[in-house]
């Protein structure tokens, strides 16, 4: 470019062209209301159990900034309130090693067995949680629901997601719980962000879903009833740990810790729940 020959008061032909192109396509700054915060939630339904699990990694803006290794509050929540998950999150923050140990120590809990896991845009997941819980509380208070059964909660989540069809909650969900009417068998539902859902035996939603779902499809077996797996709860935990470890190897949005919430019905029909925290590989 012969810059020396250009006089100070005029633009050369190339500059004029570039300037015109810029004016023809003005660059407008805009605000993106969504952000992908990572996370992979999954659930398994068995004859006497329902398991829901999530990793605890939170990714920030741009897709590469690791904001937290101990995030749970927007990812996994109970229909009743968020105290349990907040306590576990707090315990992870203060002493993760003690919680995971060599063999994961189960934390016994009481309360409704229905849990919801959501992944995608963390702020939308948090908001969804508040809206659904508020609706459930109101319905419970006015006697419209007597128990938070998974199929009722599942329907409510779908309705709530669809209510924002024109500005979606960017929350990909799974719902799991024990059906009090069905003899305490597990029920799992999987969603897209605008509320279409179905009952399945094994579900995954979030970053790395394409990696996790095929592994789980292959590991678990079900016959007859397509919405229940044959495996026991312990075997299911084992498979989920293996599968999450695999996914966390290759998916940057998944890793750190795996938190599993297991609800089981024993032979007498008594329901109990526990939470396990499993460490995924350090990376």
């Amino acid at each position: 470019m012969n810059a020396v020959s250009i006089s100070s008061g005029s633009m050369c032909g190339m500059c004029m062209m570039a300037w015109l192109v810029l004016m023809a396509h003005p660059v407008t700054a805009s605000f993106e209301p969504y952000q992908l915060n990572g996370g992979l939630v999954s659930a398994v339904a068995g004859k006497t159990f329902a398991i829901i699990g999530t990793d605890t990694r939170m990714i920030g803006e741009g897709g590469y900034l690791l904001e937290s290794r101990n995030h749970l509050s927007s990812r996994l929540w109970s229909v009743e309130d968020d105290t349990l998950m907040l306590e576990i999150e707090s315990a992870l923050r203060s002493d993760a090693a003690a919680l995971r140990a060599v063999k994961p120590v189960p934390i016994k809990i009481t309360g409704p067995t229905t849990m919801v896991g959501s992944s995608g845009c963390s702020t939308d997941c948090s908001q969804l949680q508040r809206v659904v819980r508020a609706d459930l509380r109101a319905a419970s208070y006015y006697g419209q629901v007597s128990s938070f059964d998974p199929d009722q909660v599942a329907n409510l989540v779908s309705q709530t997601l669809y209510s924002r069809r024109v500005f979606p909650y960017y929350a990909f969900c799974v719902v799991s719980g024990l059906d009090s009417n069905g003899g305490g068998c597990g029920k799992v539902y999987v969603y897209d962000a605008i509320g279409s859902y179905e009952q399945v035996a094994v579900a995954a939603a979030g970053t790395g879903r394409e990696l996790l779902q095929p592994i789980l499809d292959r590991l678990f077996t079900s016959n007859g009833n397509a919405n229940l797996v044959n495996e026991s709860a312990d075997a299911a935990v084992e498979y989920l740990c293996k599968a999450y470890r695999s996914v966390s190897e290759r998916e940057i949005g998944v890793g750190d810790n795996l938190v599993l919430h297991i609800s089981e019905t024993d032979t007498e029909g008594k329901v109990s729940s526990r939470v396990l925290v499993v460490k995924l590989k350090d990376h």
Partner: protein
Amino acid sequence: MSKQRTTQPITTGTSVIGLVYDGGVMIAADTLLSYGSMAKSFNTPRLYNIEDRILLGASGEYSDLQEIVAKVKALALQETTNSMESIYVDRKLPAKSLWNYLRAVMYQKRSKMNPYWNDVVVAGWDDQADKPFLGTVDKLGTTLQENLVATGFGGYLAMPLLREKWRNDLSEGEARALLEDAMKVLFYRDCRASARIQLAKCTSDGCIVSEPYELDHSNGWNAPSMIRAAGDLDGDGGW
């Protein structure tokens, strides 16, 4: 005239960083106000003490931060004067409540496609849990509660250093040294940062926000990596 919406920040502050230490929480930010690439003002504090119980700081659009602080101060005042209980008990706004309130405010603004363009850091003492509290809210309303936080460039430059050196039994002196070290690194490598910083801490006794002071960077440009590229230092001349 149709309603205008925020599409980009104009007058900005850069990173706010913070950590929880043994007995409290400490946050730091520099006091440079940028106007694009212009350094507009060198002594603009971005850390606030709310009712001597909560610390608030934010990066991003400065005018939005001023709005947020005005809202927050009004809320805190309301809690101590208008609320039903305030006649009987000495009620103070808990840090966590403020954090949640800000989440709701930020979420509503983002849902109207007109956000407060800030990453807000909220710090305080959680009386219920008897522990320090440190959390962030971003312009979408994403909340995060962690032991270490950093907004903006701090997430890339300061966070790795903080994570390397942090322990949950840090003393106040160690916490301050760690934050100052991180702020120095930010001054070196963030072109919208300055060496004039502000520190703030909160313990169960209350909050203190320091006056702005200058970090000692007198021999900063003499660091070996500033004179010779790090790739050179081991002698093979490669990079």
